[in-house]
């Protein structure tokens, strides 16, 4: 079956993750944090990865960047970026790959700035290290970057503690796009921020994305935010993807009971007050099968009726 009704991006995937399995190896037992996960991101596409804490979304991001440390191990699968095998790269290649090809904004990234260096020094570092510019040229470019995220370039001389949380987060995002990467990974970029600041930062990421044309892997547990920002999204549960489709399709017609529970977890801001149901305590899905296509471009993991009934019954309580 051909999938061609998608209007955004080209069909060349920028990032292709195939059957990725990541395990945390322990002395007595091992945990499979990511279990046979596949997805791809096209050029200029915003791809969302939703799920709760512990479902493996950050592990995926770290695998793509090859940042996993012991005891985590990539047990199987492949990650290819623009045709190159990321898992086979050596240290030198990785050094070029990180930041130049793929940049990542971490959870509470605003705390990842060095408190004893000025913003300018830290931003100029990127250019001197990765692009080999002179210090003066680097600072000039750093000033441009700050302007890009609407921060006064005079702030180059400020230390991180002199900026507000939102400004620090925007500075970090500016640093991430400094070398014009083709993929930006955002791991819960706004969880530590207030809602007004969050919206401004998301709007800015959207603008930057339109301007610079990079793809985004956007990781969050906030479904409303994700549906607003991403083109396509996947919902993860227990290391497995349980549903993937265009964001709007998941929003209007969530297929998997877990997705439905996640969607139901966010009360709306308009309309009548309708009793909602979250996922009841103790409901677990096990042995999630591979995805099956239920509508063009909409894939849902088959689930047994028992699980769905359990979700509904729990909600009725």
């Amino acid at each position: 079956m051909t999938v061609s009704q998608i209007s955004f991006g080209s069909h060349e995937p920028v990032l292709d993750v195939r059957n990725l399995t990541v395990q945390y190896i322990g002395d007595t037992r091992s945990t499979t944090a990511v279990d046979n996960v596949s997805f791809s991101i096209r050029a200029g596409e915003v791809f969302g990865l939703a799920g709760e804490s512990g479902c493996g979304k950050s592990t995926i991001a770290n695998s793509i960047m090859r940042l996993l440390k012991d005891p985590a191990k990539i047990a199987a699968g492949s990650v290819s970026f623009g045709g190159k095998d990321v898992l086979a790269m050596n240290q030198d290649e990785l050094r070029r790959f990180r930041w130049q090809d793929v940049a990542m904004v971490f959870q509470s990234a605003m705390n990842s700035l060095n408190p004893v260096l000025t913003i300018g020094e830290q931003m100029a570092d990127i250019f001197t290290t990765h692009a080999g510019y002179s210090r003066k040229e680097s600072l000039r470019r750093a000033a441009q970057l700050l302007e890009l995220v609407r921060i006064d370039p005079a702030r180059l001389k400020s230390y991180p503690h002199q900026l507000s949380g939102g400004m620090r987060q925007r500075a970090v995002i500016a640093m991430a796009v400094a070398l014009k990467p083709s993929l930006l990974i955002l791991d819960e970029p706004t969880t530590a921020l207030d809602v007004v600041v969050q919206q401004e930062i998301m709007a800015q990421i959207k603008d930057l994305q339109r301007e610079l044309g990079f793809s985004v892997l956007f990781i969050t547990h906030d479904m409303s935010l994700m549906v607003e920002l991403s083109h396509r999204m996947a919902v993860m549960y227990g290391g497995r993807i349980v549903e993937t489709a265009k964001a709007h399709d998941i929003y209007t017609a969530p297929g998997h009971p877990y997705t439905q529970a996640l969607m139901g977890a966010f009360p709306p801001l308009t309309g009548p007050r309708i009793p909602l149901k979250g996922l009841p305590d103790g409901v677990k899905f096990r042995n999630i099968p591979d995805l099956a296509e239920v509508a063009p471009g909409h894939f849902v993991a088959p689930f047994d009726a028992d699980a769905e009934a359990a979700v509904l019954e729990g909600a009725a309580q």
Partner: protein
Amino acid sequence: MSHAVHSPTRPDVSTQTPALEVRGLGKSFHIGGLFSSQTVRALHGVDLTIGHGEIVALVGESGSGKSTLARCVARLEKPSEGAILVDGVDVLKRDRFQASRAFRAQLQMVFQDPFGSLNPAHRVEHFLRRSLTIHGKGGTGQRGSEEQTRVRLEELMTTVGLQPDMLDSYPHELSGGQRQRVSIARALAVEPNVILADEPTSMLDVSVRIGVLNLMRKLRDEQGISMLYITHDLASARYLADRTAVMFAGEIVEEGESLDLLANPAHPYTQLLVSAVPDPARAGSYDPIHRAQLRQAVMASTTCAFEHDPDRRCSSEEPVRHQVGDPLNRHWVRCHLYRPRAGAGGHALATEPQPAD
């Protein structure tokens, strides 16, 4: 699929003493060194009433003073000025130095972090039994038998939606949602009139949050417990609370029936908050110029949208309350002309103004 719609409840609070009333509450924190006389004003002139069986939400951003208000009302912090009335009794006068047991029996708290508020060394039973014993509600000692206590313990567990056999579990064996339910059961054991819940769901996994909110609503519906629900999540405030109060820079700027307040926000700060909530139903509504105007209006408004209000004349010196819409909704907004203190901008306004291009 058809849903039952929560009917907007309007408990008749005007005729009876409110369960909790806060009058002109203020709190300043001393900053700087030993000899410094500098203070930070965290709360100023807060008036808030919660009727019997009413849920009131207090929303605002971090740093707006919501938690300081909760800590003052719970008597964990000594307010600098004002009065706190529980069932019409001024508790600051009654027990001047610290909260009495009688006060604790009337008002209980549920904290944000269920991982930190339960001692990991004890079983669930311990927390509940302790509440019962301290407040003499369990029927232990002269007042009843161990059997009655047991029945009460199991009853509490069932009320909050947990299995009675979980009484023997340690906190680490429970999920975040289950732990928060234990915290709620612990508060309930005392049979309080008012529960103060400070961001009770923000540390929980998203899929179980709604379950905890539903539990709180159930407790109100079945046991008539009044609640002050403190949150930064407007959507959940709208879902749970009968009335919502919006706090900005330590002062309440708008208050009203939740659905009405979020549908017709009158204060620019409330409008700013409401417009920032992600909602797929109105995606792409972000407008930086409108945003900058709202921000300007919050800090330095020169006009008030209610300047023709015949009952209350606008004033930049006093926090005049203008009524919004139908009096039934008890929706009021502070006059826009009354400006917040310089430097009290809060996080929403700390970002630099956007160029108006």
